[in-house]
């Protein structure tokens, strides 16, 4: 659906509707509560919202009527932590990603566990085959105290296959529905590691990874220190240089039918997370990263300090409708692939995630 979107924020979930070329807030849910991620309505109208209550922990709510009403369902829970187990406490910190296909919901979490639900949140199972990998001891937090799964790239035609993006734990792939996993981040480089460890695929920080729906062997990654692309289903990754302004950022979206058309939202650098020159711009390539253009029309160009986080940029199925939300509550929309933008609302709460559907 291109005319409805969901904005998960620090202070509630906002449903947006598009009337002609204009977006309006149609409904708010969980007002005042932090919503870390939303799973838009599935074909049967069911959807999920992940809350992260400051005092009382992570909670999951489900709707059977596309957000008109909600009821609490089960929260993914980690099993008892063995005495002396290394790494972060086995305690759910946040649901960072939600995807669904073929009747199964997947939840990526901080501190790095993947959960599966076959009953739309009534029960959850930790995917132990990934959680018990010895390589997990090497993961570490990126932007949080603990590692987390922020990207779940399902495969459009091979239901048993998915790729996970983990900060900081590289990219992991299963081709058998989660029974076995392979670390597939070869080619990425971590500038924040000592030189001898920079190419360790297990400590890469892919800020966000997305897959082209029509060309699923092509994946794009906005990494902590650059942009990478894979054209062989994550068997290898190649760095894409030449993006204007900066190669630092969080968000990336790829056109659903053209794997060469991709959008990024650059920031200065990790130590200064603001738009370059305090002027908001979106980088777009239409030729697989050989050339880029920076799109600014309609975006604030003075004293703008909005940062678009990893789930803050969304592209609708039409390939031309974009929404972009920032950590300081700015929300902009484009109906022409980013050539022109319009402010939807610049006084929203900090935006965690933007999704169409």
């Amino acid at each position, binding site marked *: 659906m291109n005319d409805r979107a969901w904005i998960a924020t620090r202070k509630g979930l906002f449903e947006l509707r598009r009337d002609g070329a204009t977006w309006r807030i149609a409904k708010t849910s969980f007002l005042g509560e932090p919503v870390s991620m939303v799973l838009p309505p599935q074909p049967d109208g069911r959807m999920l919202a992940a809350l992260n209550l400051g005092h009382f922990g992570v*909670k999951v709510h489900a709707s059977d009527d596309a957000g008109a009403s909600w009821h609490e369902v089960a929260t993914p829970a980690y099993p008892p932590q063995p005495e002396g187990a290394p790494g972060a406490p086995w305690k759910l910190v946040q649901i960072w990603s939600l995807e669904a296909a073929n009747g199964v919901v997947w939840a990526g979490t901080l501190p790095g566990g993947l959960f599966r639900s076959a009953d739309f949140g009534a029960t959850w199972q930790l995917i132990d085959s990934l959680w018990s990998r010895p390589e997990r001891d090497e993961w570490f937090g990126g932007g949080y105290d603990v590692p987390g799964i922020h990207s779940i790239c399902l495969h459009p035609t091979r239901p048993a296959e998915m790729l996970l993006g983990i900060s900081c734990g590289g990219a992991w792939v299963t081709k058998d529905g989660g029974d076995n996993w392979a670390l597939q981040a070869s080619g990425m480089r971590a500038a924040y590691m000592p030189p001898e460890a920079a190419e360790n695929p297990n400590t890469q920080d892919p800020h966000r990874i997305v897959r082209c729906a029509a060309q699923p062997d092509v994946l794009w990654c906005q990494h902590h220190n650059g942009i990478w692309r894979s054209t062989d289903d994550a068997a290898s990754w190649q760095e894409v240089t030449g993006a204007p302004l900066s190669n630092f950022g969080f968000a990336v979206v790829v056109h659903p039918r053209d794997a060469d058309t991709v959008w990024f939202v650059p920031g200065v650098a990790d130590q200064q997370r603001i738009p370059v020159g305090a002027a908001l711009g979106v980088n777009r390539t239409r030729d697989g990263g050989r050339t880029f253009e920076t799109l600014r029309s309609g975006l604030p160009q003075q004293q703008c300090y909005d940062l678009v986080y990893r789930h803050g940029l969304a592209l609708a199925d039409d390939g031309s409708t974009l929404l972009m939300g920032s950590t300081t509550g700015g929300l902009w929309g484009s109906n022409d692939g980013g050539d022109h933008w319009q402010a939807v609302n610049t006084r929203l709460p900090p935006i965690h995630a933007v999704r169409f559907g």
Partner: protein
Amino acid sequence: MPHLAFTSQLRRFTATPEIETGATTLRAALEDAFALNPALRGYVLDDQGHLRANVVAFVDGRRSTDRIHLADPLLPESRVHVMQALSGG
């Protein structure tokens, strides 16, 4: 008998039974409340059964510091309050 009450802030999420209990420890008192409303457990305790980082329990006005075992002893006249810690926002 010991008396157990929860912050009113929890009521917007789930039922918070205020109970008189024969429990002799903080954890046992909480378990009595969870028996009346199982959904309450996840709001007060984390995955490992520890007191949530931003929840605080008071026994007779003293803050419980044993967040793992919750073994604080209760006297017959003890009053237990489970509150939200302001560290949580």
